[in-house]
């Protein structure tokens, strides 16, 4: 440090004079707007003008978006038919579980649907399950991606508990609970005598088909166990073409979900009656889940979901309301700048 000690008194005029020349060597901080924390900055403040205009602008933007979204949703025609109750024979309504588990009872079921409004093709066919926890951690984890992708890794069944191997140790392909519980209701649609064929191509994500499910991976030992889960798979068809499986394996986020069953490339007219002959195979009775068949069109925004539009309207409306409310507040009760009372720290006596 400074070597000039307290008691030292040098006769000369000190080092002040020498300072000028030696300026280069100082430890003086370099001046920059950055180091001095003087960077140009904007310092926003919640002035009435700002606040009201922000709320107002948000409102003004949101309300139209809401209206457009709502209109889009209204454009969608959706036919929903819950059939899990109706398809149970009347004598078995008290014991649905016995009905579904009894393989000797025919599961055929005919449903008639009336088209409420004109429906332009393509018409999407969904099945909707309810109270079905596809997102349960045990369920979600119970698969092996490597096995699905790569024929040489058929033996990789880790994480597939408890549907790993058959009783004699053969690996199950595809293994795991998800595949095992594959949905197996089937639908056929007719309009009068006209068969409305369901196109089941391309109902899954392309990336799934191409990268997650192998072209050379064939089902083996599937649904061979004592306890059958859901659908069986044709062992001749590679997994990448088993689109129902691929769709099913994309686990849903919430316990109520729809999955794409196929598309119908026919335009439906209002008041058309569509006959659905379905096989009510899938057991939702043991856990009390509902099954619905959904026919729906889609717009740029997707399916018939009013919520988004309403939410926009509500949020936009709220913003406009707040804009007015703050304007009113500003005029009715302007801030009293000089109000001595609210300047006092005594309002926080202890502070802490």
């Amino acid at each position, binding site marked *: 440090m400074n070597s000039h000690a307290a008691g030292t008194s040098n006769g000369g005029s000190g080092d002040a004079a020498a300072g000028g020349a030696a300026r280069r060597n100082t430890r003086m901080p370099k001046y920059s707007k950055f180091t001095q924390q*003087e960077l140009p900055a904007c310092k926003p403040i919640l002035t009435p003008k700002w*606040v009201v205009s922000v709320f107002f602008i948000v409102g003004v933007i949101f309300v139209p978006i809401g209206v457009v979204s709502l209109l889009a949703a209204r454009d969608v025609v959706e036919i929903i038919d819950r059939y899990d109750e109706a398809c149970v024979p009347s004598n078995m309504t008290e014991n649905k579980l016995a009905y579904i588990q009894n393989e000797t009872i025919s599961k055929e079921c005919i449903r008639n649907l009336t088209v409420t409004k004109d429906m332009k093709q393509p018409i999407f066919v969904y099945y909707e399950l309810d109270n079905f926890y596809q997102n*349960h951690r045990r369920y979600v984890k119970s698969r092996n991606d490597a096995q699905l992708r790569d024929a040489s890794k058929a033996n990789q069944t880790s994480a597939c508990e408890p549907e790993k191997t058959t009783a004699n140790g053969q690996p199950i392909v595809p293994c795991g609970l998800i595949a095992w*519980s594959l949905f197996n209701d089937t639908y056929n649609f007719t309009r009068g005598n006209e068969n409305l064929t369901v196109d089941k191509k391309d109902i899954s994500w392309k990336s799934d088909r191409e990268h997650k499910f192998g072209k050379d991976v064939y089902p083996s030992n599937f649904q061979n166990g004592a306890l059958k889960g859901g659908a069986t798979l044709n062992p001749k068809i590679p997994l990448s073409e088993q689109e129902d499986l691929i769709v099913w394996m994309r686990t849903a986020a*919430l316990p109520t979900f729809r999955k794409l069953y196929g598309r119908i490339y026919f335009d439906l007219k209002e008041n058309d009656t569509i006959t659905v002959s379905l096989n009510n195979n899938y057991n939702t009775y043991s856990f009390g889940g509902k099954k619905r068949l959904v026919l729906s069109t*889609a717009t740029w925004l997707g*399916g018939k979901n009013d919520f988004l539009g309403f939410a926009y309207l509500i949020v936009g409306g709220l913003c406009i309301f707040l804009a007015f409310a703050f304007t009113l507040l500003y005029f009715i009760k302007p801030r009293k700048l000089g109000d001595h009372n609210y300047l006092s720290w005594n309002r926080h006596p202890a502070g802490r």
Partner: protein
Amino acid sequence: MAGEDDGNTTNGRRRRRTRRSAVRLSKLYSYACGRRPSVADDHSVSRIGGPGFSRVVMVNAAAGEPPAAADLLQHQQQITATTNSISTTKYNLFTFLPKSLFEQFRRVANIYFLLSAGIAYSPLAAYSSSSAIAPLVIVLVATMIKEAIEDWRRNQQDTEVNNRTTQVFQQGGDGDGWDGDAAWSFRDAKWKDIRVGDIVKVHKDEFFPADLVLLSSSYEDAICYVETMNLDGETNLKLKQSLEVTSTTLPDDDSFRSFAGAVVRCEDPNAHLYTFVGNIEIDGQQHPLSPQQLLLRDSKLRNTDFVYGVVVFTGHDTKVMQNSMKVPSKRSNVEKKMDRVMYLLLFSLIVISVVSSVFFGIATGDDLQDGRMKRWYLRPDDTEIYYDPNRPAVAALLHFFTAIMLYGYFIPISLYISIEIVKLLQALFINNDIHMYHRETDTPAHARTSNLNEELGQVDTILTDKTGTLTSNSMEFIKCSIAGTAYGRGITEVERAMARRKGAPVIPNPDNMDKGNNSGIQQQQHILSSSDSEGNNDKPAVKGFNFVDERVMGGNWVNQPRSDVIEMFFRLLAVCHTCIPEVDQESGKISYEAESPDEAAFVVAARELGFTFYKRTQTGVSLRELDPSSGKQVDRSYKILNVLEFNSARKRMSVVVKNEEGKLFLFTKGADSVMFERLSGSESAYREVTQQHINEYADAGLRTLVLAYRELKEDEYAYFDRKFTAAKNSVSTDRDEKIDEAADLVERDLILLGATAVEDKLQKGVPECIDKLAQAGIKIWVLTGDKMETAINIGYACSLLRQGMKQITITLETADIIALEKVSDKTALTKASKDSVARQINEGKKLVNASSGESFALIIDGKSLTYALEDDTKDMFLDLAVGCGSVICCRSSPKQKALVTRLVKTGTGKVTLAIGDGANDVGMIQEADIGVGISGAEGMQAVMASDVSIAQFRFLERLLLVHGHWCYSRISSMICYFFYKNITFGVTLFLYDAYTSFSGQPFYNDWAMACFNVFFTSLPVIAMGVFDQDVSARFCLKFPMLYQEGPQNLLFQWQRIIGWMLNGVACAVIIFFLSTASLQHQAFRSGGEVSDMATLGATAYTCIVWAVNLQMYITVSYFTLVQHVCIWLSIALWYIFLPVYGAITPSFSTTYYMVFVEALAGAPSYWVVTLLVTAAALIPYFTYAVVKSWFFPDYHNRIQWLRHREKAKAHPDPETSADVELSQVLRQFSVRSTGVGVSARRDATAVLRHLNVDYSQSPTPGAGVVVVTTDR
């Protein structure tokens, strides 16, 4: 624990004190009596060889004959194994990993993260182990890199020290064994290569490389001068002297060739700087060694060409290294509170985990009833233990750990490291603040420990040292009174302040930083030039001398009426001291090394007035005097026979000298209280006048000394000398008393010469700074070693005291106590003193309680403080002190300073800041919450112990009001924000989990989650912590009351923390429900695709990233480009991450494979939902912020409004008349609240009146501080 330690150190310090004075006394002998063995060594010598005194050093063993005894040889090898290299690093290459990891896991949060990492590797894991570990690893590695860099720096310093060179007596490179005599010489060697037993030669102004026993020096009598500034902060030189036996046999380099076989036996390494016990055996004869022969490492050789010494302690064995203690690690209040918040978060984490587990248990148990599977697709009949419906309790218990890991995002993992980064950068800003750079000493501010930055914004009480802190510790000889005539026309700082107080205009605030915020460069130059000019104005031509009077200067004194007295006066100044002159060979200038700056000032004054003291030998001093009769310079020398040392009891110092004519004189200088009673009764011609002058000087805040002399007769002196020598040689306990008695024999019947007045100069800007601090609501206590009168004077000068303030003085200098002291009945005295102090405190309290609206000042002296600080009275004392506007403790010892600091700290529970510059302040600096060291003249001791060092007291204003406030506001906002963002994230996970029947399924992809804290949200919050300014520096200083947000902890109170947490919960709820409801089971694309877990999760995640980052725009009040970049970069990172991560092979990206490119980007609903949810999530806080700032503004909000109004004023607006009013109220409020300081003197009503006028007239409103003049 800590308290005890501190107690010990202060005790140690006190012990050191007493030892120190012993050292000083022994130094005096060398002048008068030559060498003599140390007094107290007799019994300690016998201990040598016993436990604790086992060290045996073979002097120059390598050169001499091999030692006889084998065990000695072994011992020698053992101690030479300790090299002289030192290492102050925390880690080395091998211990770094385990040790730094251990340090890391001492934090609660990190243990939690380790635990959850452990869970990640078990089947309980909620998500993949590697993604769970990654953030922890990143955080740990970052912290460890920081540790490593810091340690590397320490290592560099060590290396620098270890590689310094010194001369060691050793064999040359080509020498061959014992007969190669010629090859033995003093050669340069690195410090680290020095071994115990080596003989080293140290040259002038070099540091001693190790602890040495002095063998001989360049002086004939083998003395040397040592500067121990690095050890104890004392700047005076200490005298060391070797034993006669070594100095005579070892005069030069060559003599060492034949020197061998000497053995030093001494104590083991210990930390006592002022003790040393040992002996040296030469030729079979033992000679005792004392501290007088020990040269300590890190002290410096001064005024001596060279010394020889033998190394006895090396490296970490040296006393200075043994002494280096760990600086007590301090944690800020905010961080302590943050820990409590962490516990709260951990607690709520556990609560929701329990809730989750219970529901999970119920759901799991439900799955299998009487062999009937409910959710058959989960195969409850064939499960592992984790989902076993037959043992739902066990499953729930295990699930608890899964939940703890899953909801772990409640605990912000990167908080600690972010805070450390932020604080480091904040510290850099402090170090680089040009407004805290002191040009004269080339010293910038330095935040030595960055972890206390925000504490600077919460200071409630400042405890300040006086000398060197408030005052510049440069003593200036400014006035004198000789033979009843007062000389000297200088005006002191105190006189200026007094004039100011009596109605002269208030000097405008000097801190130029307030003004001209517009152009940086200009401003900088402005500051430089201003300090230039002030430097020129203030600095006297000669340091320590500010005396202007043509009557005596330039030799004119010979024409004065009592020139004989004046001559004697100056001669006394030149002779009666213990300074050492240092003549610059080239310029011939003489400078002085003195024990105290006062003494230096006297000698300098004497020199400037014609009595140049230029040489001191063992026996006398030489002067170059102006001979009044011839008018020529003549050299005269005086033989110094005795030095009667100054001490606080004697309050005087004398020398007995014999001049060239053989006349004996006693020269005495001392405090007026003791001197006047020693004057001869007959010689009182100008006694009254002198006394009056002394009073005037004291009023002006000057230190006064009375100078007197007498001529001694031979027989009188002989009698005294006999008595004095006998007293000094006695070993009994009353030795000091005997010496005093002997001194008393001659120090009587003195002839008065006059009095001197030395100004203890106030540092620049001190009164103004204190005023600002007082306005900021900070209490200031002055703890000083000075006497009461001086302390009070300085108190007035720096506005701590003012007229109209009631002074409560607690002192034991009362008649009855003094009377009791004479009787010297210890117990009675103690009791009476204690009662007296208690009574005075009580009376003071009554006075304070009785009045309202009056300001009080408490002044207490050290003796009373001893009693006041006792356990049963200290609370009362603290009560009284807190009720007073200012508190001054005078005559307080370092230990008392530390005790008072502790009392305030623990008693009030508020943040204390201690500021000081000297070794005697180290105790209080370490005791206080924040220690600030003034890197001034008194050595580095205080700075080394401090947390922040500044060059001048006045920089405290900017350090606290600007940097402190900013750091506090930044850190607290930052921590709140951290909690907010992590709770937002964590709660969405919890809500989603509820929809998976609490099975522990995460909503988002593993790696996306892992990146949340590190990439998508860390930058803006760090930018906020570093750059945010709620109020600009200018306004921070203009409205000091803003500072109160810190001490009252308004920005980090529970309401605010919980509020932010609730905001997080609200955000999470809005984000989760809006996004899931918007994208439920219906198709979300025109292609009819429905959303699944991946797309819904990614959408919600997008909303969180947006909401959490845009929240910044509502939170931050100061946007630089950096912040914009950080915010938008974070959002952009998410949009970069998604496709990039999604493009990696699906075996890694799993569910997020192509999720953005294929599914989300092309879906309008994804973007529409993002907009909706983001806006909706921000509305609640935005509304809250509006209402708060409109109707319940914080102080900084109000100032922001004011600034805004001021700006708007540039464009005239009818509405702005209101801001004049606001500004007044703000300011008036600021002014009113303070009891001390310059502004406290203004009457509130006068202020209002003047402000109205001044403000409207001010050309640039608010640009500078309004100058108000009051006629009081």
